[in-house]
């Protein structure tokens, strides 16, 4: 699939309901190519709801607003169509899929993203593996990425996320990101669960990809430690279902020092 290299993600006055309750109450935010945005906010303020909504989880009902990728609305698209347009979400709680090895999954996903299935269908290639990246080629690529993330190759034979520790799941998310090469990536608390070394390794991986791909990043986190590695130009405070304040990186330190109490007073939410 042809992809425009750089993508801009634009969220306009987005309102979302979950099980009848309005959780997102008018989110507006723009992420341009190569930019890094940090989204910080208290538990339950709706950050994950926003990330799932952007990726197209069917549970979230959009009651107003718009989400555009390079000017094209995403809202009517299925998650796989959004993925193929360059959107990626590293999830806060990745689910496990028993019986499917990480390797099988990665190969299928990368093949789908790179249009191998499409190509096989078009050319009428009936061979058993025509819809997949050739095994040898993909094996090499995976081994290289897994090496950069300092993960053990044995993970490839394990069932997807099944019995993975919290940190292992997060690393596996970034491995997926490295293979799928998105243009806009949302990292939902990727730092939680990572040990000190892993935090550095994963962050370096993200920075490398951003440099390579000109990727726009929306990083959801509670802590400064991640933002010491992945340096945002824009920091947003998410409170009660929307962005209430945006500033530069200095805002992180203020939040770290003072928490969120002042937000309510200052922005009247």
């Amino acid at each position, binding site marked *: 699939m042809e992809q425009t290299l750089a993508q801009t993600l634009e969220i306009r006055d987005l309102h979302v309901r979950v099980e009848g309750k309005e959780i997102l109450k008018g989110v507006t935010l723009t992420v341009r190519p190569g930019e890094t945005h940090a989204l910080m906010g208290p538990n339950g303020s709706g950050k994950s709801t926003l990330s799932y909504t952007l990726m197209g989880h069917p549970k979230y009902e959009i009651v107003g607003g718009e989400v555009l990728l390079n000017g094209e609305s995403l809202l009517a698209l299925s998650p796989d169509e959004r993925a193929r347009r360059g959107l990626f979400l590293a999830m806060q709680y990745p689910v496990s899929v028993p019986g499917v090895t990480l390797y099988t999954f990665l190969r299928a996903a990368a093949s789908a993203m790179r249009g191998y299935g499409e190509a096989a269908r078009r050319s009428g290639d009936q061979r*058993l593996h025509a819809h997949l990246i050739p095994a040898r080629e993909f094996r090499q690529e995976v081994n290289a990425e897994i090496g950069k993330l300092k993960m053990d190759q044995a993970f490839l034979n394990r*069932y997807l996320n099944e019995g993975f520790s919290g940190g292992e799941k997060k690393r596996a998310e970034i491995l997926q990101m490295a293979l799928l090469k998105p243009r806009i990536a949302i990292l939902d608390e990727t730092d939680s669960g990572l040990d000190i070394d892993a935090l550095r390794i994963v962050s370096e991986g993200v920075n490398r990809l951003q440099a390579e791909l000109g990727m726009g990043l929306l990083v959801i986190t509670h802590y400064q430690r991640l933002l010491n590695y992945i340096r945002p130009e824009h920091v947003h405070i998410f409170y009660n279902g929307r962005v209430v304040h945006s500033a530069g990186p200095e805002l992180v330190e203020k939040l770290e020092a003072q928490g969120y109490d002042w937000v309510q007073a200052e922005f009247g939410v």
Partner: protein
Amino acid sequence: MANDYDDLRQIKDQTQEDFATEIDYAYQTRRGLGEDIVREVSAVKGEPQWMLDFRLKALDTFMKMPMPTWGVDLGLLDFEEFYYFMRSTERKARNWEEVPDAIKDTFERLGIPEAERRFLAGVETQMDSESVYSSLKEEWQRHGIIFVDMDTAVREYPDLVREHISTIVPIGDNKFAALNSAFWSGGSFVYVPKGVDVEIPLQAYFRINAQNLGQFERTIIIADEGSNVHYIEGCTAPQYSTWALHTGVIEILVKKGAHARYTTIQNWSRNVYNLVTQRAVVEEDGSMAWVDGNLGSGITMKYPAVVLRGPRARGEVLSIAFAGDGQHYDAGAKAIHLAPHTTSLITSKSISKGLGRSGFRGMVRVVPGAVGAQSKVACDALLLDPESRSDTYPYIDVSEDEAQIEHEATVSKISEDQLFYLMSRGLSEKEASAMIVNGFLEPFVKELPMEYAVELNRLIALQMEGSVG
């Protein structure tokens, strides 16, 4: 681990040559059944008197037994409608043009080589790969292994056949076993001598011909003391049959300390009734595993059984069923513990799609005196659509206090969160569902030889699209 097996396939394809058959004349009985037909079949095959007597007795038993009234709906089954014997050359008369497009399309999408397609569709009667087969044949002969079709066995090893036939599945075991005993044709006879380990699985595929795919396959496998054998029947590709009734009987005797495994993947076309009796008797320290995949046919009744007759005998039944629209499986497994410290493990996985329906009967019996018997039954059902259906019927009959029986059953749906996760990585909804289903079946698939495993995964993907003929 995913791995390419295309190369293997190509090699196999190149070595395929037709294999001349001894029987080259056409023969077919009239429609319907009766004593005249039994006599005719036996005469045409040139069988000895004892086999004719066996068949006649079976016909008599069949006539007297009532139709089963449980399990599936057999109300539309009319025995007078079928032909009960047909020589292989008859089937050759069918030509490629008559094969339904849906089946051809499936072959195409599975990447089944041309030569195999014609065979599987019943257009060709032979597909032996002579070079592969004959080198194996020499190897088997050197070790005293007998692996022949049942007709040959009756001719060449009459004493062995006579000694074992219907000792494990009696003629009157059920109405369909009786029918099979009266009209059996095709199937394999396997004898593995004491202490012999057959390293390469014996595949019916190697010596298969139209008759083996016939309606009344009869297979006997004897694993003598301390031997080890794996027998594989069937294949993953759909087999088109105009015969609507398939009634097989498989009898396996696992002697002291021997290990046997019988793997079958059944994918008959949807017009078929598949009513099969599979049973193994396991002696002291022996083990038996039934690995049973059911993808095709319209109506299936099948309950592979292990009779654990000697101390410490072990039995395992691992089965899957994929019931699509219009398919009804009534499957299950039986473990009968007759001796102390016997163990059984029954694992069943069923998938129902659309209006597909699958039922599972897990039966465990422990007789008094079978102290320390252990059995575990686990059945997991996955429903793909709101209207799909799955039922579990446990029958547990334990007359020994010192026995340990576990039974667990789960019914699940494909979870929205799993689908979302996989789709967010670029897989279409169909690809994502197929992946979840393949994962669900993985405990079964990993027991299969690799080429079957790869084909099965692909087939499940096609079945998920609802496009299998």
